């Protein structure tokens, strides 16, 4: 169809009907939807370049956070290009060089970047075969590639190196070349060792903390006693008298220092903090009533999951329960860091942000620089597990660097900067109510969740979204936070049950005001929602007199969900109806992460010291189905890490605060799981080579908390519905 009519003529001919159409001439060139991140980054050479030596350089907008993604993406590219892994080099997360793939978050890198690379690499290989075809005098279809050499059955061959000069990849991807069938995979599916580990184990520069630029100096910042405070006065004399101090930087209530040496900057920070006079911001809510307080704030109510069927009124048994999850910290081992260099009106920032493009937009906006003058280059940091201080410290470093043009400034936050100022995973309340019929089947499920936003990342609102921007003399203000929509969801992630209930109603109460700074922590709302709904499933099973595994299976139709539940029960030697003995017990938890990604079931075994009130998660078994597995060892590492992290959240973690401010400022008041406490873990992967790969970086946390909570109830006969399971709470529950 050719659209050459102008809009008015066309409209005349059709009368009023035309209003129903979007009749833009651009319609004619409407772009075909491409899979994964190819859709937003459509040129092949944005992803892959063939170098003169026949090797390939592969570009991705996703970044390494310790999850092993760069190795997995290299495997995908090498597989489809038919190159040895060693001849694929990876460039990631650089606003000057790579595709823009937004944030590296939500277990989506294999699904989005992996899909893009798989298709782009297959297409590049095909282009190379077509170029090779006349040279070896045979059709492209008849050719094979072995380690970057195109081989023809007639004995002729040509290398990628020989083809490199004539290949033009500056063309739009078509996504029409089929990737290899899984049966032909040689690199995908293999437990390839991580590319970054040898350097990390031997002290090679691996992190932004290790970056050293010529002439580099050191920065530190001084934050207020609590949120929203303003700096009334500061006596800089003492700080400036410290040898090596180059600049004290003050812009409104943003305060920092730059010194020749790191220890000098730290001393100056102390001196500035001691002399700073702050007008305190609003008091924090009372921690004793935090959940009631949050529920009292204005909410946006969304009914997100409704199923309706006639209910058989056979004297149903009705159960009701309320669960809570406190604020939790990302608690990275290394405080966030960045290096920034301001030179000739151009700013370069080395950052471990999860999204270099959104960060660049925020920095450019805050510092009124054209985005083209700002380059953000991803350089690994300590693991972040979501939106920690990475973006904030990058803006801090940039503000300090602007004060000392030409001098690169390295800034690593101190431990209390990170703990007190990072955006936490929000506190949440969950309320569940369900009815059982005479046969012990759930006939009605009502579930409500109250939560703040789980994403206040850079560019998440129309306003300013990075910490220092709110404290400048001309402050930026945050816009209205939003929640990612279903089906992935934010605070409501995994709140819609996957079980087959005839009637259900799920309500998301989105609380906009944030008395305590919050954002994305690994799994967003899924951890809390799986804790609540899978705990409630066990409470219902108990009321129905059913075994928890059998009860789940009786309500679950999805075969892949059933498969992981059955598998983990088998692995753990699950005995139906087995009761705990007061100190030891077992429980199960299941979720399909986001209701869109990997299927995970976990059985946990706990031991309780009733006198001390401590809980040991001694053993865990886990079955995971993440579709086609790219790197089994990497996948196991992510799932196992998630189980241990979730055990830590569940047993220990809660951000402490009072009306005056945040109290969790170091590891003594934010303890995490230690080496002696780590459970023994067995993991089985159900590989499904013909299914697409499913994100798995956040798959095991929800099932683990549920398994632990259910194991505790199984062991003791008492149900704890408020996290974490700290000793006072355990002792109170046991009476």
């Amino acid at each position: 169809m050719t659209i050459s009519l102008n809009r008015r003529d066309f409209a005349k001919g059709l009368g009023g009907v035309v209003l129903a159409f979007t009749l833009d001439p651009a319609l004619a060139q409407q772009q075909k939807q491409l899979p994964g991140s190819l859709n937003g980054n459509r040129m092949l050479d944005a992803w892959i370049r063939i170098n003169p030596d026949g090797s390939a350089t592969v570009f991705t907008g996703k970044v390494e956070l310790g999850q092993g993604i760069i190795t997995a993406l290299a495997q995908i590219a090498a597989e489809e290009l038919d190159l040895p892994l060693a001849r694929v080099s990876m460039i990631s997360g650089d606003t000057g060089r790579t595709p823009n793939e937004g944030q590296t978050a939500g277990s989506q890198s294999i699904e989005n970047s992996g899909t893009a690379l798989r298709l782009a690499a297959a297409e590049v290989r095909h282009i190379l075969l077509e170029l090779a075809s006349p040279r070896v005098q045979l059709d492209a279809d008849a050719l094979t590639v072995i380690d970057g050499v195109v081989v023809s059955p007639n004995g002729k061959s040509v290398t990628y190196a020989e083809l490199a000069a004539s290949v033009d990849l500056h063309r739009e991807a078509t996504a029409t070349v089929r990737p290899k069938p899984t049966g032909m995979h040689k690199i995908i599916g293999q437990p390839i060792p991580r590319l970054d580990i040898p350097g990390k184990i031997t002290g090679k520069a691996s992190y932004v903390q290790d970056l050293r630029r010529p002439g580099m100096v050191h920065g530190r910042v001084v934050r207020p006693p609590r949120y929203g405070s303003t700096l009334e006065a500061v006596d800089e004399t003492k700080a400036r008298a410290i040898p090596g101090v180059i600049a004290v930087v003050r812009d409104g209530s943003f305060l920092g220092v730059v010194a020749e040496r790191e220890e000098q900057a730290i001393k100056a920070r102390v001196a500035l903090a001691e002399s700073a006079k702050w007008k305190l911001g609003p008091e924090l809510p009372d921690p004793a009533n935090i959940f009631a307080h949050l529920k009292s704030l204005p909410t946006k109510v969304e009914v997100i999951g409704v199923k309706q069927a006639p209910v058989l009124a056979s004297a149903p048994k009705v159960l009701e329960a309320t669960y809570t999850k406190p604020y939790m910290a990302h608690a990275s081992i290394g405080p966030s860091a960045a290096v920034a260099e301001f030179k000739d009106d151009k700013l370069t920032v080395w950052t471990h942000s999860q999204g270099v493009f959104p960060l660049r937009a925020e920095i450019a906006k805050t510092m009124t620089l054209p985005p083209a003058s700002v380059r953000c280059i991803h350089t690994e940091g300590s693991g972040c597990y979501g939106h920690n201080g990475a973006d904030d410290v990058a803006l801090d470093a940039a503000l300090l660097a602007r004060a000392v043009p030409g001098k690169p400034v390295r800034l690593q936050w101190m431990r209390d900067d990170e703990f007190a100022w990072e955006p936490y995973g929000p506190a949440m309340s969950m309320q569940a109510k369900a009815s059982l019929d005479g046969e012990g089947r759930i006939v009605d499920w009502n579930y409500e969740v109250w939560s703040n936003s789980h994403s206040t990342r850079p560019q998440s609102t129309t306003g300013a979204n990075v910490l220092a921007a709110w404290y400048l003399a001309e402050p930026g203000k945050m816009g209205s936070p939003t929640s990612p929509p279903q089906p992935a969801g934010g605070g409501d992630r995994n709140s819609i049950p996957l079980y087959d209930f005839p009637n259900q109603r799920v309500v998301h109460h989105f609380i906009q005001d944030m008395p305590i700074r919050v954002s994305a922590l690994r799994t967003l709302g899924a951890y809390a929602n799986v804790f609540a709904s899978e705990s409630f499933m066990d409470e219902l099973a108990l009321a129905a007199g059913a075994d928890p595994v059998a009860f789940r299976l009786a309500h679950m139709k999805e075969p892949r969900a059933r498969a992981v539940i059955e598998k983990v029960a088998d692995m753990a030697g699950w005995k139906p109806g087995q009761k705990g003995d007061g100190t030891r017990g077992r429980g199960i938890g299941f979720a399909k992460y986001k209701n869109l990604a990997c299927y995970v079931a976990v059985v946990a075994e706990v031991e309780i010291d009733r006198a001390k009130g401590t809980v040991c998660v001694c053993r865990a078994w886990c079955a995971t189905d993440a579709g086609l597995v790219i790197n089994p060892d990497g996948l196991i590492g992510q799932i196992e890490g998630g189980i241990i992290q979730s055990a830590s959240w569940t047993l220990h973690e809660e951000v402490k605060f009072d009306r005056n401010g945040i109290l969790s400022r170091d590891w003594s008041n934010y303890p995490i799981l230690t080496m002696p406490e780590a459970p023994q873990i067995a993991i089985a992967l159900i590989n499904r080579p013909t299914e697409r790969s499913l994100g798995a970086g956040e798959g095991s946390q929800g099932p683990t908390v549920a398994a632990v909570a259910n194991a505790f109830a199984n062991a003791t006969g008492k149900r704890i519905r408020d996290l974490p399971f700290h000793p006072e709470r355990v002792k109170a529950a046991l009476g």
Partner: protein
Amino acid sequence: MAVTLKVNGASRTVPAEPDTPLLYVLRNDLELNGAKFGCGLSQCGACTVLVDGKAVRSCVTDIGSLGGAEITTLEGLGTADKPHPLQRAFIGEQAAQCGYCINGMIMSAKALLDRNARPSEDDVRQALAANLCRCGTHNRIIRAVLRAANEMGRT
């Protein structure tokens, strides 16, 4: 001020005050990346080095207090081409996710193996009890230390 230190077998003079924590001198003057800043409070273990064979938190150890002590960092154990058995075992077990804590794990494990060549799993867990890992790599780390002990015991 200048202070002279013995690091990985070599004598090094650094232009720093005696009250400077060893960590900053190792990282910034000697450009050794192994020891990491984690807390500055001796709570997490990321900055661990060996001082005369003992695991010490470099973030709270002033250089002025060290005298002629032998300081060993991660780089002093081995290199990517010639790794120490502990480093080889950590690579073999893929015992790192983000890897930020791993320096401390390896250095604390080195101190353990130097005093107990045949540790039990529980010995390893206890020896690393004050080294925090956030990614959940605990079990791989424990396996790597036991593997190194095993390999070192054979040679």
